[in-house]
């Protein structure tokens, strides 16, 4: 078991992204630091476009994540509908 993580800027967009992550990944742990939100999970964490769109109330492109993301740990798998971080080991 290894931890994956994503760190986001603490801003308006991220607030909704974090809500979406928490809903879709019940085991994810959210940690706040000054100006930054860090979300960790065991082995795997997925962000679904549909959930984020529902929270934001508008269209959202998974690649838009690039604007708010500060750092990640884990392999990335991204397509039009989701963004996943995972470790194989």
């Amino acid at each position, binding site marked *: 078991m290894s*931890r994956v993580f994503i760190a986001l800027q603490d801003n308006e967009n991220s607030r909704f992204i974090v809500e979406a992550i928490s809903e879709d990944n019940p085991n994810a742990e959210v940690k706040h630091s000054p*100006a*930054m939100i860090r979300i960790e999970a065991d082995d795997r964490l997925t962000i679904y476009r549909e959930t984020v769109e529902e929270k934001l109330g508008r269209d959202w*492109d998974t690649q838009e994540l*690039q*604007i708010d*993301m*500060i*750092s990640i740990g884990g392999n990335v798998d991204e397509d039009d509908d989701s963004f996943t971080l995972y470790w194989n080991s």
Partner: protein
Amino acid sequence: MNAKTSKRLNMKDRYRIMTRDLAWEPSYQRHEDIFPQEDFEGIKIVDWSQWEDPFRLTMDNYWKFQAEKERKLYAIFDAVSQNNGQMNVSDPRYLNAVKLFITAVTPLEYNAYKGYARVGRQFGGVGARIACQMQSIDELRHTQTQIHAMSHYNKYFGGMHDFPHMFDRVWYLSVPKSFFEDASTAGPFEFLTAISFSFEYVLTNLLFLPFMSGAAYNGDMNTVTFGFSAQSDEARHMTLGLEIIKFILEQHEDNVPIVQKWLDKWLWRGYRLLSIVGMMMDYMLPNKVMSWAEAWEMYYEEAGGALFKELERYGIRPPKFAEQTVIGKNHVSHQTWFVFYQYGHATAFNTWIPTAKEMDWLSEKYPDTFDRLYRPRFELLAEKAAKGERFYNNTLPQLCQICQIPLAITEPDDDTMISHRDTVHEGERYHFCSDGCRDIFHNEPEKYVQAWLPVHQILQGNCGGADMEKVIGDYYRIEMGEDNLEFEGSPEQRRWKQWKQAV
């Protein structure tokens, strides 16, 4: 209404069309003539088409997202300067971390821009070339946004006026400069392993996350904003760094020992370089976010641990000497600040003894080392300073041939003894701070015999003569009494008090 699915190509198709389909097979030139640096490092690439950018970022979207990032960033810069943002920082001592940043880190961004432009030209695979092109442009953006962010502070504070000149000359800036030049003069695959993987993936989190969060905590809006804007690119660079390593390892089993040697080298090089960041976090941020030891645990021991566990399947083991970094995390920030404090006449920033409250924080964060070793040193020097004998070390230190840091770091198994190693190569003696640095020399002695060691250059007479005041003032362009020396009683402190009273 969601038009996404009907009108637009999906991400995978768009990536194929906008990267691979832009390439062509050469018909009248040989591959090895077009990409002459692809082979000499011994790395074997069987199939470049296996290269995949997991973000599948194409040039059109790249410009769109980068433009959005810039709009947000420059709106903040404008707001900071229009609202006298410099007065909102927690404490004027904080600005010294910013001075160190623009002199030591911003020039590395510029070197990264040049480095990716160069190696991007050298790869036979189009996916790799496009990824390097984007990263090269990112790094230039980081250079520019950092200069813009700090130009506001440069109107009010010293030490930032000649940063590119200083980067090429000042003794402690030879540490980041020689680090990057070592990578830039390596072959293209070693460059990617050094910068994309070891530095970006394994180590930059330690610079940008806790330090930038610290900038926010100390009221420095410009730095936190450019820092996080740059880091949003870094997240992409990091992913690329991991993909590169996996790609190289999957291409051929002969690549494994070569990559392992590079990982051993560049983790150690990066660890030594980050001594400066440790010092910034523990000593230069008046409001603290986390200690250097905590940051090392979170970002190296935990995150790096997960990473190297992932790479085991390829036959990669954790970097050599990694266990020494775990011991060193409780010493390195204190030892580094102690170096800068005593050579504070030759720095483009002010130095000081931590306040009583700050020392208590350090005791709490470093229960095994601070009270036993470092508090007594700082208290002795505080006593001297109170008597008007502020300690400046007027001798020159012995430097490590590889990392170029003064030999101020102690043995892993004896923290009262300076760590020192040496070797004789072709009749000439060379000195090192550690087994890690000596190993690096032994692997490529012909490269490191030419190190431009600032102390030796001064003593050869190449830095404007034997008078240290001239070396510091004329050759380095550190303005005596203005940019350097003790913070207490400095012009910087005096001006700050006047401004605060005027408000």
